[in-house]
């Protein structure tokens, strides 16, 4: 061939776009052959132009591709048709459609929110890269009468482990978080005071073990200098008004130690138990707290974390710790202290060790309950949907008949109904997502006390799709099969009223009402228990009392008298803390008879109190007298009845007896009636009041009025005494209520979800009733003509449902009985289950169900037979 000219490329591309694929090879070949023919007599330009023209002329209907393939085309038409019919069906019965969509939306929304909550709560601290291999060292202490579990350990522990355990990859020691005071000089030279609750002391290994998000500063060196500090973004903004370029600035701790800012990190995320608002090197803590930091027998808020190369080594390390600790602990401590490793990810859900400072816990049992609720609320919504759709199946019977007569296959019909309802469910899912988004904000706001930070992210797409798919499958499959199984011959024989699936619908109704009654009864029991809990006599008064710290023991008397001079203040007492422990703050000690060995000491709480303390809180003396003077060293004790019992004394015997505690020996001068020194989840423990002058750390003020002005006056009086300190106060009632935050949460959660469950159940019943009454309008007409009264008709409709609800009631009882007893076992002060709670739940359900159906039935029953029988 003398010419190697090629035809232009782009017309070919166009050709390939529009020409049917099966003709391409032939036509392209023809085009190229003609091109070469032309080239023999013409220039390549001319040939190229002719080639292009030929391509354009190939644009003929016969040769051009269809808009879509043949097969798709028919499917597309069918789907469009089915969607149209589906849409018409939704519109035709708006009430039922609305009930269907509403019930399902509530169900899926509740489930999505709960699952997001569960995911959040069970993923605490999972975001650290080494999370799977990181452990907290926890301590079990065996006392003669009980075992005490600590989430903190002695301070020298981490350094010693690092020294002796080469098989441990990383070890880090922290102290706190503690409350500290800071002063910062601003541009104008003014000194600003700040108090920060969560100052964490951490060594230089801490940033290697835990993933802090560094905005500025070097994670390798930021904590290596003694006088440095790493701020969270929030604190940086609080101290300096900005979180930008604060590196190198100076803040002073407690007004004396200068700390240089060496780093800024992101705020601690909500789903972490390790709280910090700023981090100061552990070396600084060690330097300034020499006694604590080198003490092996005390437990003062230190935590050690270890990272193992392989999680499988956990038990090996634990057994090595057991034999190793004797090297440092004195023989007595070595006997009773045992160290264990707790996986980082279990800190949040393992209730045994209590929550870390500034954080909270979500016990695994609570999360399991949440899963249970989520599944059941979704189940009840699905059952509702299925029930309503199958109940209405009869009205679609003729459609199915016609379709079958003109040749629809059963699978085709199944597909139609699944598609039709599936689309409806998909829509409800979109509603749910929007609703979830709104509600999560509300929920976060409501639970700001635990810094809840739930959000809807793309990561939840999989979860939501899963919920959607499960819902669609469960809610559509059965109705689709029921609908498609109608036989044309029966339908046109006018026997269509009797369709299959009725007995299943009965069992679904029973299932639904079992769950409804379960929740109703459980909510009643939870409510009574929480109420019992809240109204428990504490044994002391807490109304209108505010507490505020004493900064300087020297000034107690001046502070007291100037407070009492104010008309808004009724009374003042000073002590080491309120009668009931708040936020776990208690002074622990051990007590024994002076001649007994130290190892026989029993655990007790000690409270230092002034002369007014017992009167102030309304604590009642059973025998003996109050203190007459606070002194150092102390020489008098007042004990509570629990301690009395543990010594097997009568009140009178106790008076004058000598008792030895860790801090010294003194004489018992009084016995006080038991009061709740621990929060109500726990038993009352032995308490010893001491007439000491030390540890009088807290002023309690009973206010005549708690308006802002009165509180401001108290602040003024306080600040006069402690001019360079930051004032703060707490209402004792609030502090006590915070101890029950989790119980309140459970109660509120249970109430909300019970209401939702009942609501969905009622929606379902409403739908069913309205359909059934409509279907039987004629029958009612005939019955009325034959002399039936209104009550006859009401009974005629409702007797079946009353039966079903009663069966459900009987089924619900054992489940509630068992589960609620389990739940109540965790409470020391608990109610006992009694029959009336169950009966109340059953009656309540019956009443609500009766009221729901009543209006539907009344509407049908009041129709004049002339009306209902005329339209034939």
């Amino acid at each position, binding site marked *: *061939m003398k010419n190697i000219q090629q035809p232009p490329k782009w017309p070919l591309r166009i050709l390939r776009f529009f020409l049917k694929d099966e*003709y391409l*090879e*032939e*036509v*392209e*070949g*023809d*085009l*190229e*052959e*003609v091109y*070469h*023919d032309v080239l023999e007599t013409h220039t390549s330009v001319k040939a190229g132009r002719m080639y292009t*023209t*030929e391509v354009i*002329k*190939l*644009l*003929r209907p*016969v*040769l051009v591709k269809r808009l879509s393939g043949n097969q798709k085309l028919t499917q597309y038409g069918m789907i469009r048709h089915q969607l149209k019919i589906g849409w018409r069906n939704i519109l035709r019965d708006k009430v039922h459609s609305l009930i269907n969509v509403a019930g399902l939306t509530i169900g899926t929304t509740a489930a999505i929110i709960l699952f997001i909550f569960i995911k959040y709560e069970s993923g605490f601290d999972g975001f650290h890269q080494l999370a799977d291999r990181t452990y907290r060292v926890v301590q079990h202490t065996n006392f003669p009468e009980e075992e005490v579990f600590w989430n903190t350990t002695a301070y020298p522990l981490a350094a010693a482990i690092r020294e002796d355990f080469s098989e441990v990859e990383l070890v880090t020691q922290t102290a706190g978080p503690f409350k500290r005071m800071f002063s910062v000089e601003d541009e104008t030279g003014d000194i600003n005071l700040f108090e920060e609750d969560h100052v964490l002391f951490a060594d230089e290994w801490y940033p290697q073990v835990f993933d802090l998000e560094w905005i500025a500063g070097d994670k390798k060196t930021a904590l290596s200098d003694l006088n440095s500090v790493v701020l969270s973004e929030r604190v940086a903004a609080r101290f300096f008004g900005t979180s930008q370029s604060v590196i190198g600035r100076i803040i002073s701790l407690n007004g004396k130690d200068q700390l240089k800012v060496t780093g800024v990190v992101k705020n601690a995320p909500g789903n972490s138990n390790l709280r910090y608002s700023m981090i100061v090197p552990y070396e600084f803590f060690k330097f300034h707290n020499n006694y604590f930091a080198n003490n092996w027998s005390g437990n003062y808020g230190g935590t050690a974390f270890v990272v193992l190369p392989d999680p499988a080594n956990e038990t090996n390390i634990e057994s090595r710790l057991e034999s190793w600790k004797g090297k440092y602990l004195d023989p007595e401590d070595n006997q009773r202290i045992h160290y264990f490793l707790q996986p980082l990810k279990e800190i949040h859900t393992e209730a045994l060790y209590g929550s870390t400072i500034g954080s909270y816990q979500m016990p695994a049992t609570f999360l399991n309950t949440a899963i249970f609720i989520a599944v059941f609320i979704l189940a009840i919504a699905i059952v509702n949907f299925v029930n309503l759709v199958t109940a209405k199946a009869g009205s679609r019977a003729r459609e199915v008949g016609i379709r079958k007569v003109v040749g629809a296959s059963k699978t085709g019909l199944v597909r139609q109904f699944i598609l039709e309802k599936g689309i409806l469910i998909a829509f409800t899912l979109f509603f749910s997502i929007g609703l979830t988004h709104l509600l999560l904000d509300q929920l976060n706001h409501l639970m700001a006390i635990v810094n809840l930070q739930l959000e809807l992210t793309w990561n939840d797409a999989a979860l939501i799709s899963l919920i959607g798919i499960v819902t669609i499958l469960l809610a559509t499959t059965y109705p689709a099969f029921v609908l498609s199984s109608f036989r044309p011959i029966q339908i046109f024989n006018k026997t269509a009223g009797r369709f299959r699936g009725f007995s299943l619908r009965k069992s679904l109704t029973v299932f639904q009402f079992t769950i409804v009654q379960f929740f109703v009864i459980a909510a009643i029991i939870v409510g009574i228990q929480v109420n019992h809990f809240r109204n428990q006599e504490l044994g002391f008064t807490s109304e209108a009392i505010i507490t505020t710290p004493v900064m300087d023991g020297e000034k107690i008397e001046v502070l007291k008298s100037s407070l009492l001079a104010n008309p808004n203040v009724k009374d003042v007492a000073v002590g080491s803390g309120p009668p009931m422990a708040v936020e776990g703050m208690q002074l622990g000690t051990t007590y024994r008879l002076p001649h007994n060995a130290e190892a026989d000491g029993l655990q007790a709480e000690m409270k230092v109190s002034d002369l007014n303390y017992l009167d102030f809180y309304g604590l009642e003396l059973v025998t003996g007298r109050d203190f007459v003077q606070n002194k150092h060293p102390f020489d008098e004790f007042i004990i509570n009845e629990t301690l009395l019992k543990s010594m097997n004394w009568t009140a009178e015997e106790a008076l004058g007896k000598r008792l030895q505690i860790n801090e010294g020996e003194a004489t018992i001068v009084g016995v006080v009636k038991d009061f709740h020194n621990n929060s109500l989840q726990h038993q009352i423990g032995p308490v010893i009041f001491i007439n000491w002058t030390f540890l009088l750390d807290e002023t309690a003020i009973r206010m005549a009025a708690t308006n802002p002005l009165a509180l401001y006056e108290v602040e003024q009086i306080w600040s006069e005494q402690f001019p360079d300190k930051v004032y703060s106060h707490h209402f004792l009632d609030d502090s006590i209520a915070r101890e029950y935050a989790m119980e309140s949460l459970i109660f509120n959660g249970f109430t909300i979800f019970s209401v939702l469950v009942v609501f969905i159940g009622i929606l379902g019943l409403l739908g069913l009733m309205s359909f059934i009454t409509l279907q039987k309008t004629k029958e009612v007409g005939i019955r009325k003509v034959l002399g039936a009264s209104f009550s006859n008709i009401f009974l005629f409709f409702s007797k079946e449902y009353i039966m079903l609800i009663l069966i459900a009631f009987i089924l619900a009882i054992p489940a509630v009985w068992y589960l609620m007893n389990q739940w109540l076992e965790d409470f020391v002060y608990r109610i006992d289950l009694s029959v009336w709670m169950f009966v109340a739940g059953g009656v309540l359900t019956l009443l609500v169900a009766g009221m729901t159906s009543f209006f539907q039935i009344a509407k049908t029953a009041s129709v004049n037979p002339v009306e209902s029988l005329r339209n034939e």
Partner: protein
Amino acid sequence: MELKTFDELVLLTITDLNEQAYGVSIKKAMEQQLNASLSIGSIQSALKQLEAKGLLLSKYGEPTSRRGGRRKRMYDVTSYANRILNEIKAKTSLWEDSTKTGVNFQSV
């Protein structure tokens, strides 16, 4: 069956080419016969329609370098097409006979 004149010509050309009929050869033969230039599109659409009506059979032939290595599609008429062509031929010969005997339609 009614055939368009063009289709009839295509069928006749294919019969004439005797197993050597494919897109380009048909085009060339028809251009020669009609003394006019034809586009590939017109030939191809006629071929596809005729094939769909069952008047043509086709199969792939040999690839040639002149076609950029693409195969030809060889066409042959079916017996059904032959019958139709014969019918047409019979009609035409009848016409010819009638004109010979002097029937003049214009005068009728």
